[in-house]
C-alpha cells in the first residue's frame, strides 16, 4: 500500500484513483482545505506537498504518495499559530474567510522558496488565488508584514 504523510501522520493511500481534495475533505475530515472551482483556477484548495503549494483539486492521492502533505489544519504548532496565520489575523485579512486557508498555504509556500519576496513577487505568487470578498490589499499587507519581519516562516515541510 502506498503511503503518504498528512500533517505528520502516516496514512495509507485509498485504493483506486482518488482526488486529493476529496480525500482530505471527506475521507480525512480535513475540511479547512476548500473547494472553490475544481478547475485549478481559484487556489482555495491549496495544500503543501513537501513544502511547495499544490492545487489539491487537480491532483490524485496517488500522485503525492510518498510525499508529506500539509493542510491548513497542520500549520499551527501545538496550538501556536504559524506566523503567516498570525499576520492574517493581525491585518484582518479576511472577510468570509473561505479563500483564506488557500492564501495562507500559498504564502507559506512562497516564503519557503523566497524568504523576503518583493511586492511584485508576492502579487505574482498569489495571482492564481481568488478572493471574491476583495480583501487583496489586506492580504498583501499581511504577507509583506510577515515577509519583512524576519521571523522564521518555514513550515509545512
Amino acid at each position, binding site marked *: 500500500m502506498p503511503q503518504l504523510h498528512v500533517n505528520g501522520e502516516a496514512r495509507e493511500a485509498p485504493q483506486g484513483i482518488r*482526488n486529493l481534495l476529496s480525500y482530505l475533505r471527506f475521507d480525512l475530515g480535513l475540511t479547512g482545505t476548500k473547494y472553490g472551482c475544481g478547475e485549478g483556477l481559484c487556489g482555495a484548495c491549496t495544500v503543501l506537498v513537501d513544502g511547495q503549494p499544490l492545487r489539491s483539486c487537480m491532483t490524485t492521492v496517488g500522485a503525492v504518495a510518498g510525499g508529506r502533505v500539509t493542510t491548513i489544519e497542520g500549520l499551527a504548532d501545538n496550538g501556536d499559530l504559524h506566523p503567516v496565520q498570525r499576520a*492574517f489575523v493581525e491585518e484582518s485579512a479576511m*472577510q*468570509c474567510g473561505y479563500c483564506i486557508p488557500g492564501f495562507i498555504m500559498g504564502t507559506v509556500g512562497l516564503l519557503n522558496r523566497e524568504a523576503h519576496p518583493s511586492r511584485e513577487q508576492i502579487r505574482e505568487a498569489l495571482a492564481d488565488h481568488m478572493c471574491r*470578498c476583495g480583501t487583496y490589499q489586506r492580504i498583501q499587507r499581511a504577507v509583506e508584514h510577515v515577509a519583512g519581519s524576519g521571523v522564521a516562516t518555514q513550515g509545512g515541510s
Partner: protein
Amino acid sequence: MTAETQGTLAQAAQAGLAIVGEVSVGFPANRSGYGQSTYGNTQPQTEEATWLRVHPDGTATAFAGKVEYGQGIRTGLAIEVADELRLPLEALDVVLGDTDRVPWDMGTFGSQSTARVGLQLRRAAATARETLLRLAADRLDLTLDELVCADGRVTSKSDPTRGLSYADLLQGQSLVEPIAEEPALTSIEDFTVMGRDEQRIDAVARVTGRAVYSQDVQVDGMLFAHVLRPPSFGAQLEAFDASVAEQMPGVVQVAREGNLLAVLAESDEAGELAARVVQAEWSEQPGQPSRWDMPALLLDSGAEDFTMQEAGDLDAGFAAADEVLESTYYIPYITNAPMEPRAAVARWDGGRLEVWAGTQRPFGIRSELAQLFELDEAEVRVIAPEIGGGFGGKSIYAPAAEAARLARIAGRPVRVAYSRIEEHTWATFRPAALIRVKSGFKRDGTLTAWEFRAYHAGERVNIGRRGSETPYDVPNVQVSVARSDSPLRSGSYRSLGGAPNHFAREVHMDEIAERTGLDPLEVRLRNLTHPRFRRVLETTAERFGWGNPLPEGHGQGIAIGLDVGSYCATAVEVRARGSEVRVERVEVAADCGLIVNPEGARNQMEGSVVMGLGTALYEAIDFEQGRLLNAGFARYRVPRIVDAPRINTTFTGDPDTPSTGAGEPAIVPIAPAISGAVFDATGERHQELPILRHR
C-alpha cells in the same frame, strides 16, 4: 455536528439570566419602495424570544437571526453587547442563524435591519446590566447610584473593594427578564470597545480551517448527491436510463422526482462518475433570448413603471436649458460568484427536518421547506453555518430543498453541493438594466431638468428602484423605474439596482461636465447642496489630490453615491494602455453614521471597491438561447490580487447619527468613477459595461 435542539423560549428557563423580547425588529424601513422583504417570509410565530443569556459563570451569549457571510456581523454584535454589558469581548459568544436557537429574523441583507438587531441586543444587554445592578444593590445593601458595572463585576463607586462578579450574582439564580421599555443605553462617549479597531472574534477559526461552512458539513450516513442539471434553462426531463449508473461501485440509487434527477452515492467522486453514464432526455424551451437581444428586450417589455421622484415641470425645465443631452446606458447581467458555491445537507428524523444551508435567510428557507413538505415550521430547523460570501444572492438557496427532497427519497441524509459551474449557472444574476437619461442644463452646468427612465430585468417589481433618485438639486425632475422581462433568473446583489442606476446618473454628470467644459468635480459641486453629500465629495477630492497632474496615460474620475442611508464618494486613478485598463488607486469617503467597528467597515469598503471594479471592467454574463456561455472562472474574469488597487478610506459620519451600514455604499460610485477616469485618460466615453469588452 448538531447542537441540542431547544426552543428559544425554553432556553429562557435555564440557569442564569435570560433577557427576552419581541422578535420582529429585523424589518428594514420601507423607504422609497425598496428594502422590504420581497420573498414572502412567513411572519414570526412566537412574539418573544431570548436575545441574551448571562450564564452562571459570568459569561454571556447573544442570539440573533442574522448570519455571518464575511461582513463581520458576529464581531459587530459582540462589540455592542460587550459595551452595554461591561464584559470583555472574550466573555461573549454570539449564536447566529440557527432557527431553533435564535429569534426570528427576516434575513441578512439590509444594513438597516442589521443595525436594528444590534440596537435590540444593546437594549437587551442594558436590561441585563440593570438587572445585575439591582441584584447587587440588594446583596450589598447599597443604592443603585452607589454602584457601577465594569469588566463583569458590580462594585461600589466609593469602595472598589466591595463588589460582586456577575457569576457571584447569578449563582443559583434562574431569572427571566423582559427587555426594559427604555433601558439606559450607554452614551457614545462611554463606549470602551465600540469604535475601536477590533479584530474579528472569529478570525482564528478562519485561519486555522476550523470554521465550518455549508460545503464542509458532513453528518453520519450522509449520501453525496450528484444532480444532473438540464442542458438549458427551463428544460424538462422527459425520460432517463440509469441502469448502467446504478451498477457502478459506490452508487446507492439514482433518484428522480419531477425535474430533479440525481445520483446518490457513498462518495462525491462515485456520484460524479456515475452521473456521466446516466442517459437523460430533456425537452428544451425554444426561442429563448440571447445576450445581444437584451437592450431591445428591456425596452420593449418594460412594465409597471413606478415613479420614484417627481417635481416641477419637465417641459419647462428643458425649455429653460441652454443645452439638452440624451444618453442611454446599458449594464449587463453579472454573477455574484461567491467563493463558496452553495451547498446543503438535509436530514430527516421521523417527521422532523434539519437542513444546513449557508443562506442569508434561514427563517425564510424554513418557511419554504415547511410549505413544500406540508410541515409545521416548528418541525423544520435550518442552520446557517459560516457562509463563504453571498453579496445578497444567497437569499435564494435552491440546494436546501433539493437535499431535503433527495434525503426523503433515500431515507438517509443527503448533501447537495454546487460545483463552480453549477453555482455560476443555477444561482441568480444581478439583473441587466437599460437606462435612458435626458438632462437640461445651463452653460454654467446648473441642471434645469432631469428625466431618468430605468428598465431593470427581474421578476420582482422593486428590483431596480434602489438608488434611482438624483441627489442633485434640480427643480424639474422625473425618475421612473420599470420592470422588464428577465430571461435569466434575477436575484440580489450588493446594492442590487443601486449600482446600475448610479452608473447611469454619474456618467451622465460627467457628460454634462464635458459639454460645459467644466471639471467633473465642479459640475457635481455646483448642483449639490446636501451637507452630508458635500462632505464626502469634498473629503474624497481633497484626500485624492483631485486635479493634480497625472503621468502620461493616466486619468482620474470621481462619483458620488447613496445606498440605504449611507453616503459615499469615490475618486480613482487609472492607467490605460493598449487594451488594458488598470485601476491604480482609489480614494473613498463614506458617511455611514455611527461606526461600531471601523476596521470591519473599512474592510467592507475595500471589498465593495474591488467587487465594483470587476463589474466596471470585466464582468458580463454571456448567454445564448437559455445556455450560459461563460460559466466558470476560466471564462468569467473577476478581480485578482494583481488587479487590486491601493484603497484609502475616510469616514466622515457623525457618531450621533444612527448606523446605516458599510457593506454596500462603496459599490455604487466605483464603476462610474472608473468610466470617468478612462475617459480622462483616453477620451473614450463608456456608457456600457463592462468597459474592457467595449474597448
